């Protein structure tokens, strides 16, 4: 990439080198910070598998000597706690939001980047303008719309308004502008339409970009709280975040159940982090370029 690689390095220059002591200090600082960062996860685990009496004991307890593995089972068996239902709702909302956003925003982004219609730029400015308005502040106007459509406490109200992300469309447009044009032109010469080239050539060759957008959308949808709180009026339509928040503020469940519920709620994303972190990191790096 840089022409300097061919040149010889200055004498005595060792990139990133420090004394042994400095390196050890950096490592120690990082290790201490890592422990601090993991404490909340540790607390969730500890409390999810303890009894209430153990959690509230005045003596500090590292782990329950007799872990209450049954807490999870009891959480799902308790008819007063809509845990299974809220997990299902979250899964449906997060998956459909991801699929819908991917479909709508990649097609829109591709159209804006590649179809040379005369007024394409004017449409693009309409999309750009929405980036100026922070999403959370539009929840009042969106609520007005959704309630007059009769979509309160409904999957439609939870999912559909979130699909039209101007930002995702913008990212897709930027990505497709950088997509090698020769590949598509070869396909067009072979008689494929724009639509055909998009599905047969462009999409299959954009796997890692699409995965990045998908993962970041999924995480956002799973963790989102304000909009589901506004829309989910009946307990049947609560997502897991709204359910957790209700348990927390109304104090309707025991402490150990509360933490067991928190554990269940973060598990899907912990798996995403473990197995798809590469795409997530890439997605974050892309999102950050918003500016």
């Amino acid at each position, binding site marked *: 990439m840089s022409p300097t690689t061919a040149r010889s390095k200055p004498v005595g220059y060792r990139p990133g080198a420090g004394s042994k002591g400095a390196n050890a200090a950096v490592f120690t600082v990082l290790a201490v910070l890592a422990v601090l960062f993991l404490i909340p996860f540790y607390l969730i685990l500890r409390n999810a598998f303890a009894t209430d009496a153990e959690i509230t004991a*005045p003596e500090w307890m590292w782990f329950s000597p007799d872990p209450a593995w049954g807490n999870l089972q009891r959480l799902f068996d308790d008819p007063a706690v809509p845990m299974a239902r809220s997990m299902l709702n979250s899964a449906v909302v997060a998956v459909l939001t991801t699929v819908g956003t991917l479909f709508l925003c990649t097609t829109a982004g591709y159209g804006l980047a590649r179809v040379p219609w005369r007024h394409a730029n004017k449409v693009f400015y309409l999309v750009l303008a*929405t980036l100026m308005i922070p999403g959370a502040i539009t929840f009042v106007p969106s609520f007005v719309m959704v309630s007059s459509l009769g979509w309160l406490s409904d999957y439609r109200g939870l999912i559909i308004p979130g699909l*039209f992300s101007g930002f995702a469309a913008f990212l897709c447009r930027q990505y497709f502008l950088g997509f090698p044009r020769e590949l598509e032109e070869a396909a067009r010469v072979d008689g494929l339409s724009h639509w055909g080239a998009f599905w047969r050539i462009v999409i299959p060759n954009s796997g890692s970009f699409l995965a990045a957008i998908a993962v970041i959308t999924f995480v956002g949808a799973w*963790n989102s709280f304000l909009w589901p709180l506004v829309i989910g009026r009946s307990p049947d339509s609560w997502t897991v975040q709204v359910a957790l928040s209700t348990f927390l503020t109304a104090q309707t469940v025991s402490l150990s159940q509360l933490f067991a519920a928190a554990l269940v709620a*973060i598990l899907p994303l912990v798996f995403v*982090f473990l197995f798809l972190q590469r795409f997530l990191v890439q997605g974050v790096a892309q999102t950050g370029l918003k500016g």
Partner: protein
Amino acid sequence: MAVSTETAPPDATAGAGGRAPRPRRRKGGWRTALTFWYFVGPFLAGLLVFTYIPVLWSAYLSFFDARNTVTPLPEDFVGFGNYVRMLQDAAFTDSLVTFTVFAAFIVPLTFACSLGLALLLNRVRLMRAFFRSVFFLPFACSYVVASLVWKMSIFNGVRYGMANSVLDLFGIEDVPWLFDPSPPWYWLVIVSLRLWIQCGFYMILFIAALQQIPEHLYEAAYVDGAKPGWQTFWHITLPQLRATSVAVLMLILIAAYQAFDEFYNLIGNQAYARPPLMYLYTTALGTQQDLGRGSAGALILALIIAIVTVLQGRFLGFGNAEEK
């Protein structure tokens, strides 16, 4: 990483106008128009229905006494009444003060911590991937889950809470972190929570930016006798991170402006520590369902953030910095 550099928007608007020549196909052809609408139509329709129409509708509602209704009668017209009442309402102005205090804490702290983590990670050789994952992992936690842990386990204000257990080791009395507005210890709870969740996110951005800094700059600095460490950081690393730093500061600020989840779950609708969105939520969707006033508030807040964005862009040369 390769993809992200490709997609780096040099400037959002420059790409639209000054691109390479389009293919020969006639631009005005109805077939091209049809193809364009195939691709963009569904998205644009959604954008109109779920962004543009609601915002306009809301602007309309903001001039009416619209309680519990989205279709007010003509006689409920109040002109700028909602705006005037909003700006005179101490709770609204207090919420702006709350946001200002919050931003004063969270923006510099997040910036310093995420940059610090990125620099440390850049130096360490051993277990780098592990550390990166650990610092990034809190991003998997929702604000609701984090609030739950912070409120019920770390800062619960009673003896068995973690923070108080630690204080106990030093013989310090229990502190009721969240439940007593004076002294305002709740800021420590709120700020540490957000710091924990978002540091890793911005750290990733800084790591990506650090890797873009050309090695030869450091070599040249070495030849010119710059001491590694502070001098190199101040004169090479920091200026090279300028574009990313500006973007990160902006993102942290806008995110802080929209803070709601942790305030709602940690403190709820109390007279203290009520950020703008909390105020908006209780006005528009509380028992009153005052959508007229809620709409006025939403528009005022949107206007403030738009002004801040534009001003920041002007002063910090946002677009120019990105172009490099």
